[in-house]
C-alpha cells in the first residue's frame, strides 16, 4: 500500500487515475480504515486529502451559501454557529453519525461517498439542495448530491473522481430544515428510517419544499410528491397527512434485522410529519 499526500485535488485525481489497483481517498478515514481492517479492501494506493489547502474550511460563498471542505469533521460543523443557524437540519444529520470520537474525523463527503442508504447526513444535504464539487481526470463538475449515490455502497463517481467540497445554497428568507431518524436506542446506531424536510414560508404558507428520505430505498431519495403535498399549505392536518402518505408511498424498503419493510413505511410517514413541523418552526424563527 502506497500512501500519498497530494497538494491539490487535481493531483489527487491524477494519482487515482494513474493507479492500476484499488485506490481509496482518505479524509476522516472512519469508513476506509474499517474496510481495511475488515479485509474488505486492501488499497494499493491511499490518497490522503487532508493536506490540500482549504480542505478543512467552512466558507461563505459569494452568494451567501456555504462551502464545506471535504475534510471538515462533523464536530467542526456542530461548533460552527453560523452554519448551524442557516442549515440546522444538515448539521444535525451529520452530528448523528457515530460517536464523539468518530465526529472528530468523519466528514460529509465521506458519508456521501460511502454510499449507505442509511447515511444520516445525506437526506439533509439532498433536502437542502446541496451540490458536490467533483474533481476528476476530465476536470471539475458540479453534481447535485442526490445524483452521487447509485445504490448500497456504490456511487456514480467515475474512476479517479473525488469530491472536493459540498456547497449548500444560500439559506434565504424564512427558511428552515430538519432531519429525524428512528433508531431503537438513543445513540451510536444506524438509521432504520431517516427523513429530512427543507422548506420556505411565505407568511404562514409553505412556498417551497424539498423532502428526502433515508434507509427506505436502495439509496437516499428525493421525493417531489411529498414536497408537492405541502407546498401552498399551512401544514394543517390534511397537508401533513398527505405528506406522510406521499412519503410512505415513495418508500420501497427492505426487511432486515433492523426493521421490517412495513414498519419502515409506517415510520417514514411519522418522521416526515415531525420533521416538517420542526422545519416550519425553524423557518418561523428565521422569519422574525
Amino acid at each position, binding site marked *: *500500500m502506497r500512501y500519498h499526500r497530494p497538494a491539490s485535488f487535481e493531483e489527487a485525481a491524477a494519482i487515482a487515475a494513474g493507479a492500476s489497483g484499488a485506490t481509496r481517498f482518505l479524509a476522516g478515514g472512519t469508513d476506509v480504515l474499517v474496510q481495511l481492517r475488515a479485509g474488505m479492501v486492501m488499497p494499493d494506493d491511499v490518497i490522503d486529502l487532508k493536506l490540500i489547502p482549504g480542505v478543512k474550511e467552512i466558507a461563505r460563498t459569494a452568494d451567501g451559501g456555504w462551502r464545506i471542505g471535504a475534510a471538515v*469533521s462533523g464536530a467542526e460543523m456542530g461548533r460552527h454557529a453560523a452554519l448551524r443557524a442557516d442549515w440546522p437540519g444538515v448539521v444535525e444529520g451529520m452530528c448523528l453519525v457515530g460517536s464523539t*470520537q468518530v465526529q472528530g474525523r468523519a466528514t460529509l463527503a465521506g458519508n456521501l461517498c460511502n454510499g449507505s442508504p442509511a447515511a444520516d447526513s445525506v437526506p439533509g444535504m439532498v433536502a437542502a439542495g446541496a451540490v458536490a464539487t467533483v474533481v476528476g481526470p476530465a476536470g471539475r463538475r458540479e453534481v447535485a448530491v442526490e445524483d452521487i449515490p447509485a445504490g448500497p455502497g456504490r456511487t456514480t463517481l467515475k474512476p479517479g473522481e473525488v469530491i472536493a467540497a459540498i456547497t449548500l445554497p444560500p439559506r434565504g428568507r424564512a427558511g428552515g430544515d430538519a432531519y429525524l431518524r428512528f433508531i431503537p436506542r438513543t445513540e451510536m446506531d444506524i438509521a432504520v428510517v431517516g427523513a429530512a424536510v427543507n422548506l420556505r414560508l411565505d407568511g404562514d404558507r409553505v412556498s417551497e419544499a424539498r423532502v428526502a428520505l433515508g434507509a427506505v430505498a436502495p439509496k437516499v431519495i428525493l421525493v417531489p410528491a411529498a414536497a408537492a403535498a405541502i407546498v401552498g399549505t399551512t401544514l394543517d392536518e390534511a397537508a401533513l397527512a398527505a405528506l406522510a402518505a406521499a412519503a410512505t408511498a415513495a418508500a420501497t424498503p427492505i426487511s432486515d434485522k433492523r426493521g421490517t419493510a412495513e414498519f419502515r413505511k409506517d415510520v417514514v410517514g411519522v418522521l416526515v410529519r415531525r420533521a416538517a413541523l420542526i422545519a416550519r418552526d425553524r423557518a418561523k424563527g428565521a422569519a422574525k
Partner: protein
Amino acid sequence: MTKLHVTATVNGDPVEFLADPRESLLDCLRDHLDLTGSKEGCGTGDCGACSVRLDGVLVCSCLVLGVEAEGRRIETIEGMANGAELHPLQRKFIENAALQCGFCTPGILVAAKALLEENPDPTESEIRYWLAGNLCRCTGYDKIIRAVQDAAAEMRGAN
C-alpha cells in the same frame, strides 16, 4: 512494503518511528513506541478503548493511519498523570470503583478529560452521550458517570 519515517509529538515528547502505511496509529503507539495503555477492543471505531487526542481532537487511534501522525500532536493515557500524581479523573475512578477489568478505562479517561476541557460542568445526560462511543462490559456505566461528575466538581473547585 516501504516503511515511512514519521515524526510526531506524543505527550509532549518528540518521537519518531517507521510505519508501514497499513498500520493504524494505535498499532504504532503500541508496537513502535511501547505505549500500550491505549487498547484495541474492536479495531473498527465502535468501542473507544483506543481513544487518544490528535491535535487536541478526541479520536479512535484505530481509525487513524500511523503515517497520518506526521507532524501532529498526540496525547495518550500515558500522559495523563503528572509523574506519580494521578489526574483527578484517575483518582475518582479508583475512589468510585469505576472500573473492574480496566480494559476500557484508558479510553474512557482520555475521552472524559476531553469532555471536561470543553464542558467543565456536564450534566449526566451530556456525559452519557459524550461517552457513548466508549463501551464498558463490566461496570454498567453508573459508577463511571459518578466518577466523572465527582472529578468535574473537584476540578471546578480547584480552578
